[in-house]
């Protein structure tokens, strides 16, 4: 996998419902770096940010150690708070982002629109379609 395009995927269900999507990306030669919570995400981002071509982010995520559960609306918008923080860090702010979630929510819609970030629903997307999206949006 060395030299292959790297994708950081943040999803607590990374070994579950999104597995077919990840396998599809891996079959096409991409390397998927997995993070299930905010702490893992920051660790991986710090380690690989230069090589990461795109970040795929779920919205409903555990809040981890540092995020206020109230602010994250009990985890309902943890992903948006993480994306906000990523965008504010200059080292990471140029990495393209995709919101990939089951949550069909107006708040997420508005956030994505305001920040020009792709908002894709898992239940309406097939692995092959997702591969195309990644290709179109990667750095």
């Amino acid at each position, binding site marked *: 996998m060395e030299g292959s395009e790297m994708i950081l995927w943040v999803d607590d269900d990374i070994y*579950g*419902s999104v*597995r077919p999507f990840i396998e599809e990306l891996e079959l096409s030669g991409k390397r998927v770096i997995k993070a299930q919570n905010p702490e893992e995400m920051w660790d991986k981002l710090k380690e690989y940010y230069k090589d990461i071509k795109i970040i795929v982010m779920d919205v409903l995520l555990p809040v981890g150690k540092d995020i206020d559960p109230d602010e994250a609306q009990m985890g309902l918008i943890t992903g948006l708070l993480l994306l906000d923080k990523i965008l504010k860090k200059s080292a990471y702010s140029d990495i393209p982002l995709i919101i990939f979630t089951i949550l069909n929510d107006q708040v997420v819609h508005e956030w994505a629109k305001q920040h020009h970030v792709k908002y894709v629903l*898992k239940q309406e997307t097939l692995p092959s379609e997702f591969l195309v999206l990644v290709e179109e949006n990667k750095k």
Partner: protein
Amino acid sequence: MEAILLKALFKASNCNNSNLITSLLSAVANVFPVKMCTLWKVNFLTGHLSVHAREKYEPVSKLDFEYVHLIKGSLIGHFIDIIVSEKKKYIDIPSVLDQPYIDYHQSPDRVRSLKLKRMICIPIYDFDESKCEANRSNIGAILNIYPEDDFDFDLSYAEIIQEHFSLSISRSKLISREELTRDIMSVYENRGGRDLGTLFKPIIDKIFRKYIKYEGCSIFTWDPFSNKLDLVQTTGILGNPNTKDVYYYLGEGLTGGIALGEKEYIISDVNYYRKKNYDGNYKYKWRENTRNDPLSFMAIRIMSPSRVSEILGIIRFTNKLNPLANVIDQFNKDDYELINHASNMIALYMDYDQNSKIRSAFALQMAHEIKGPATFIRASSDRLQKRWNSSFSKRQVNSELRDIFDYSELQIILTSTIEYAWRGSEDIPKSNLYHVKRVRLLDLIEKVKKLAIPIAREQAIDFNSINIEGDLPYLFIDPTAFKQVFINLLTNAIKYRKRSRTERFKVSIKGYGLKEYQIPESNNIKVGYLRKNIRKVGYLINIIDFGIGVDPNEVNKIFNLGYRRKDVLRLDVRGLGMGLYVVKKVLEDFGCTIWVSKFSDPTIFSIFLPNTLRDDNYTKNSTWRD
């Protein structure tokens, strides 16, 4: 004279509730030739007497003992002892200046200056609403009359006064409750879009003050996610801190202790209490901004009406003031009952608010939980279809099909959990809810273990760490329902495992056949539905895991519908809080018992299955069929 007294008292009763007792006392003072008279409320909780109404004398407030003083060592205290021990209807002494009365008297100067001599003391008993008569074992107040020396006082007068005051005080309490209910309802009805904190403002600033005079009041609400009591409204906190900085953790200080239900709710001297209970080390974290130093204190817990033993908040008061003067008074059981009544109303509103939020969060969460496996099945099927004849090997095809099967099973299990949680009630016969078959428990649990594969894989844990052993016999049970029991216990063990990389996931399900078993009381004292002190023959199954454990403070809530361990949110946001509720419901329906026999390291959930499940006779009983 009796007729005149009765007429005057009836006339006096026909007034505004807040003036009722004053009006009655005034009637007594007008009918009898009195130099002065006082109605003292007796507060056995703190051991104090407080003036409730007084006629023909108004001392300055710096003479605070004229408004509030201890029962012990006082003249009234002495009279109460006599009334109780000698079963006296009333006491009539010729001269209060005589020994030992004058020694007991709190204000001999007043006795002399007002030329008081003869004294009549009439006990007023609490009125028992259920029996519609005064409860002669509870003295609620004392009426002291200093009449002219030659006044011919009769027992019948004492009885009329006793009866009328007792009934009126009781009536006044009921009216106060009703008015308070109306006041709070009106605040809520005019709520508009205001949050609860804003809603509480008129309640603590105006409404409560109509019934109790006090210097400080604050309302804290319980934040279940950060496990603390947050200040939401106050008459003022010393130092004017930022509201968000004012909070107590459970068990922290007096307020946190009251939230735990461990401390007294009415305290006569809060400073002395702190010194006594905290060895002088704990001053206070936050206190109300009061004119006088904090002395009297009362706190009332706001409990959830829908979620058993769940606290929603605390209303606390500092420094009650006497109704007649700005003298610090003591909170009493009437204050407690009145505010508790208000807190029940407030709890209903808070609960309704919370339930609306919980309902929408639940709907969102449920949709998320169901769509997860469906998304997997959809995506996997599409991949399989597209790659069937090209890039997939036979092994890959098999693996993909296996995954689809596992996720379909997971979806079925999940929807069944929802179904079991919501269907059925006490009114529906169990024979309609369950389909009993002879099933080997070992086989059933082995099947459940396989069902947990996708869940275990999602969490990247070793599936072989689930160990099943021991006596797990053939039983007559509903296999689908019992699958729910074990899948939920198993998935909880997976979800609530320790997540550090050094901790290896391990769970055991062990069965034991028992000739006789006494369900231990010490470990399950908080789980209310256990049948205690019954020796039974049957099977004990222990589900043992080395996860994060059960919080002993929350053990009585874990089987409630919607309960999720709040601190888990940092690690896991999924789940519906239905699992253990369904486990309990199914087991209870089959006459089984579940309890937490060890909170952590390892955590052990124990299930007792009675021998009655060895055959299907129980399904022929009327209790099962009707």
